[in-house]
């Protein structure tokens, strides 16, 4: 299961990010399920994007809808974590890197506070030094799973220290680019804290995929990373 996919348009890049391309990549690589969302909700308007996500996932049991909220627009009106969960979303995604807002930002606190009232986990980008630390501080003492995206060689020590301290912090694989990242994470925090995500079709699927496949961790750990952990974090809802 791929926890980190998307579809739609991406004018800042200009590549093909269509739903058809996502489905083709899933078929070519035998991905059974993908958690996905429309980029319209990230780059333009979260209510319209969330509607588009639900429409794309309707009737397709391989696509699991992720909602997003843009803190620059969020005032807690119709689109709240609770209403999104009722609408059928299984996970909330936030994009501080693509939308340019800081983690220490009042609307983010409001969103995360409201997320506590749901059973949805959070997937959030944290690709620069200190972002993951700020996120972990915000959710300290809370129980919902927080999956960090954007963890690579440069901020992996930050992620490991946080994951040791807080059991609800997880990491997703799309940026894990150092040669033994999977082995070190499994040794330091356990395979149950690592979830497979590719960030396709924004980036190539097969890099993160081969990183897990060719890692030297036991097969049962790979199985956890590829599927079982996501199933558990999503609350068995898929």
């Amino acid at each position, binding site marked *: 299961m791929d926890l980190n996919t998307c579809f739609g348009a991406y004018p800042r890049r200009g590549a093909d990010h269509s739903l058809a391309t996502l489905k083709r990549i899933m078929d070519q690589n035998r991905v059974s399920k993908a958690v996905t969302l429309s980029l319209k909700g990230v780059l333009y308007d979260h209510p319209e994007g969330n509607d588009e996500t639900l429409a794309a996932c309707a009737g397709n049991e391989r696509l699991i809808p992720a909602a997003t909220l843009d803190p620059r627009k969020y005032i807690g009106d119709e689109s709240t974590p609770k209403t999104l969960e009722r609408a059928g979303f299984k996970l909330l995604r936030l994009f501080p890197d693509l939308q340019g807002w800081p983690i220490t930002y009042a609307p983010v606190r409001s969103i995360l506070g409201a997320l506590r009232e749901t059973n949805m986990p959070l997937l959030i980008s944290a690709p620069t030094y200190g972002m993951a630390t700020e996120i972990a501080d915000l959710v300290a003492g809370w129980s919902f799973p927080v999956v960090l995206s954007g963890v690579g060689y440069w901020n992996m*020590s930050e992620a490991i220290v946080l994951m040791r301290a807080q059991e609800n912090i997880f990491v997703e694989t799309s940026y894990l*680019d150092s*040669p033994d990242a999977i082995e070190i994470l499994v040794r330091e925090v356990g395979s149950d804290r690592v979830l497979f995500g590719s960030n396709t079709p924004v980036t190539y699927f097969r890099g993160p995929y081969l990183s897990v496949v060719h890692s030297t961790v036991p097969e049962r750990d790979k199985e956890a990373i590829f599927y079982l952990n996501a199933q558990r974090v999503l609350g068995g809802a898929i």
Partner: protein
Amino acid sequence: MRVVDVHAHYGEWFFPIEASKEEHILQLMQRYDMEKAVFSSSLAIVYDMEEGNKRLAEFLPKSERFYGYVVINPNYPDTSARQLETYLGRTKFLGVKIHPDYTRRPVSCPENIELLERVRKQKKVALLHTWGPEQVEATSRVADTFPDITIIMGHMGGDGIEGAGWRSGIAAARRRPNIYLEVCGSCLHRDRMKEAVRALGDDRVLYGSDMTLLNPSITIGMIEEADISEQSRSKILHDNAVRILAL
């Protein structure tokens, strides 16, 4: 598919990476079917040029599959010249590596140009770290200054998910037949291989991994998945490097 890696590193990193020793490198090469790899010293790039180049020179004879680049630093032009004198004539050293981020000087600065004259005379290649449009311009100036040096543009201009460096790199290489694009990086744009091959053909694109900083899986996966022909894949992964480096 056989692989030659033109962008590898030997040494430690200031990140949690343990796969930096000879046995780890050989395991990675085995895993990804790498016949040969060309290394530069991370120690020489980030801290101690002389000690780093020395350690690399001691490492290279450990396998017939290992080759190297001498690292030079324009902030130490005299020492760099001595490094070239010491190592560049050795068969295991195929060229130089220059990293402008760690020297805070453009690859086209006067000191580098003077040092590269020695590279030209000895008919060796230059791997130039190139990340972003500004560094693409500097690498292009070097290529214009030395049309008879094979310039390997590291990261094909780079720039991550939203940046324009790699597209600038392709445009620069189109105008300069001595620029070869080396493909490694993180979070790679899904069109970069297709656009490079469409613009340049498949003879001037080279496989590099950036191991042991990066996992070769990232770039092997990219080339496996890229919308290019099997022949192009073979050339990029192997044949082009064998040809230009005379391996």
